[in-house]
């Protein structure tokens, strides 16, 4: 799950929990507030009643010792004064009681207070109906829920926008530093603009890591390039020595056969060195991309070079080039070598009397070239490693090779921004799919 989604989700859930809690607690809260409010009112009324009694005398309320009581019209409040014996002692309480008034049971909040005038003990009772308080609970709860849910939605939206904004540098770092760049050619360091120090830290760390990797790669490439160059001269000397020895008249055929063996081995060394040098030159971008070619011409050229090998193995070669568009800004020598190696592999790992099909078509605005063989195939677990140098997985039938054919293909494809895909089934065949970048003109 995305960090942004996670953050928003967490925010939403936590807010929701709080809101639900609040709504559930709402009735209790309201009751408490009401009670406090009522109690306050009762106390105030009590004070008023006492002041009135003091002013007008108890006689104004209690005629002939009859208890005084007065209800409001709807009986939601009443006041009563009565004599009482002294046994209760001094009393000033507020309690909740049920009273039956004219057949209705009404919940009252009742204030009781005792006071003394002369020798007589009186009890003042003020009651206030609280039956209506609970009535609004449900309505209040639902309103509160709606309002709060609406607010949550608003904050979620705000959260989304803000987290999107604040996390954007992360996306940019990944896009420009890790995905957008062709590994390991990263070029110069460009700061990703952000005020979040964590992202600045990440950006810097990634760049530092890249620099380390890059310099390691650079060293490796330099080494390969230097080593290959240094090997060229001694190979050259050996080759000319062998060639000269061939011409010597005193050399017997027996020795010549041995010289031939040496020549073969030297050729192998030469091929390896040349190939490594080529790969390092491609990786160092020492080739120009100034040619314009068409797939048909390239495949025809390869066919002319390679037809003898097809013939030797009795392999049928078919081409199906739907869109023979020309490819600008490529290196013909390299593309030729790429197709040569792919088709050569398709021959090498093919069965006697097998088939090779080269297809070319446009898919999703990109030129696709497929090389399909009916060969021995590659096991699925080996596919990830076939582009590694000097890895030989497939035992070719008769010929020998040294495992640099596909690495050359890969370097050339990378150099031109071509994606390679391999699909294969053992003993059925292998398909190499090349996706060229962009729309060819």
């Amino acid at each position: 799950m995305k960090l942004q989604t996670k953050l928003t989700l967490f925010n939403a859930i936590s807010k929701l929990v709080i809101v639900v809690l609040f709504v559930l607690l709402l009735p209790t809260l309201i009751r408490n507030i009401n009670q406090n409010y009522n109690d306050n009112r009762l106390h105030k009324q009590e004070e008023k009643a006492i002041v009135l009694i003091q002013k007008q005398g108890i006689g104004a309320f209690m005629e002939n010792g009859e208890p005084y009581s007065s209800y409001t019209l709807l009986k939601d409040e009443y006041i009563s004064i009565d004599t009482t014996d002294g046994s209760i002692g001094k009393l000033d309480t507020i309690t909740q009681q049920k009273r039956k008034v004219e057949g209705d049971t009404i919940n009252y909040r009742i204030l009781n207070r005792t006071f003394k005038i002369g020798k007589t003990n009186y009890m003042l009772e003020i009651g206030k109906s609280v039956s209506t308080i609970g009535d609004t609970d449900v309505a209040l709860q639902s309103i509160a829920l709606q309002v709060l849910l609406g607010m949550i939605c608003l904050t979620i939206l705000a959260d989304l926008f803000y987290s999107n904004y604040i996390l954007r540098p992360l996306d940019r770092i990944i896009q420009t530093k890790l995905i957008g760049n062709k590994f390991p050619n990263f070029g110069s360091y460009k700061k990703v603009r952000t005020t979040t120090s964590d992202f600045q830290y990440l950006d810097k760390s990634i760049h530092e890591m890249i620099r380390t990797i890059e310099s390691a790669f650079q060293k490796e490439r330099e080494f390969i390039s230097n080593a290959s160059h240094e090997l060229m001269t001694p190979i050259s000397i050996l080759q000319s020595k062998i060639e000269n020895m061939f011409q010597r008249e005193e050399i017997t055929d027996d020795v010549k056969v041995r010289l031939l063996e040496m020549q073969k081995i030297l050729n192998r060394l030469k091929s390896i060195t040349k190939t490594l040098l080529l790969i390092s030159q491609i990786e160092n971008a020492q080739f120009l991309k100034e040619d314009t070619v068409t797939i048909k011409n390239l495949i025809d050229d390869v066919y002319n070079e390679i037809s003898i090998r097809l013939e030797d193995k009795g392999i049928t070669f078919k081409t199906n080039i739907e869109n023979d568009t020309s490819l600008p800004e490529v290196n013909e020598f390299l593309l030729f070598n790429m197709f040569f190696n792919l088709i050569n592999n398709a021959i090498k790992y093919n069965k006697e009397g097998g088939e090779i099909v080269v297809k070319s078509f446009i898919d999703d605005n990109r030129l696709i070239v497929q090389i399909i063989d009916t060969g021995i195939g590659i096991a699925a677990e080996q596919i990830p490693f076939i582009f590694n140098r000097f890895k030989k997985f497939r035992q070719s039938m008769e010929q020998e090779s040294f495992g640099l054919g596909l690495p050359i293909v890969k370097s050339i494809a990378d150099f031109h921004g071509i994606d390679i895909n391999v699909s294969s089934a053992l003993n059925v065949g292998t398909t190499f799919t090349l996706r060229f970048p962009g729309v060819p003109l």
Partner: protein
Amino acid sequence: MNVLIIEDEKSLAKELEIFLANCNYLCEICYNGKTASEKIAVNLYDFILIDLGLPDYEGLDLLKEAKKNNPEAACIILTARAEVYDRIKGLDLGADDYLPKPFSMLELQSRMQAIVRRKFGLKHTIVNLGDFVIDLNDRTISHQDKEVSTITKKEFDLIAYLIMNKNRTLTRPQLSEHIWGSVVNDDYDSNYIDVHIKNIRKKLSVHSAPDWLETVRGLGYKIKLN
């Protein structure tokens, strides 16, 4: 013909000398750029072979001097530096050919022959082999004035290479290096040469048996030509 070999690798220079002397060239060797520069200024050569990687001299400067003082000489650049830019620069400066190390001396010799043919205007280098007439310039092979059109480009390359190195046994690695040398690929098997030779024989035998194309058992092939 006079050849100046400028190569700081002594053993390579020596081998070149032995080989070219065998092919009847007169050779002089320079192991460094300074003496080479002096020699170029004083003597006239038909061929100057320049190694670009000289320790004391910029090889391309030598090429310029050679073009100035020895305008008739054909210059061939030999170098381990196979970078494209060098190649373009060398040819821009008037080099007649370019051979990246490691090269086969047979290749060098056939390139020198090609330059000679070009320079001295030998419009048609015609070779008679048995009942066949081979024109190296037009790249045709004919039987009784009729062209054998079935011969492919690669097959002709093979025949031409054998003719240029006539009376010499060329091994399969040497032949495959010549005809597939520009391709960088990952197998060193040269048995395909046999398939080519078989095809050539089949195509020519329709007209007349090509006895001149000899198989040297266990070694390779040879064209006998007097």
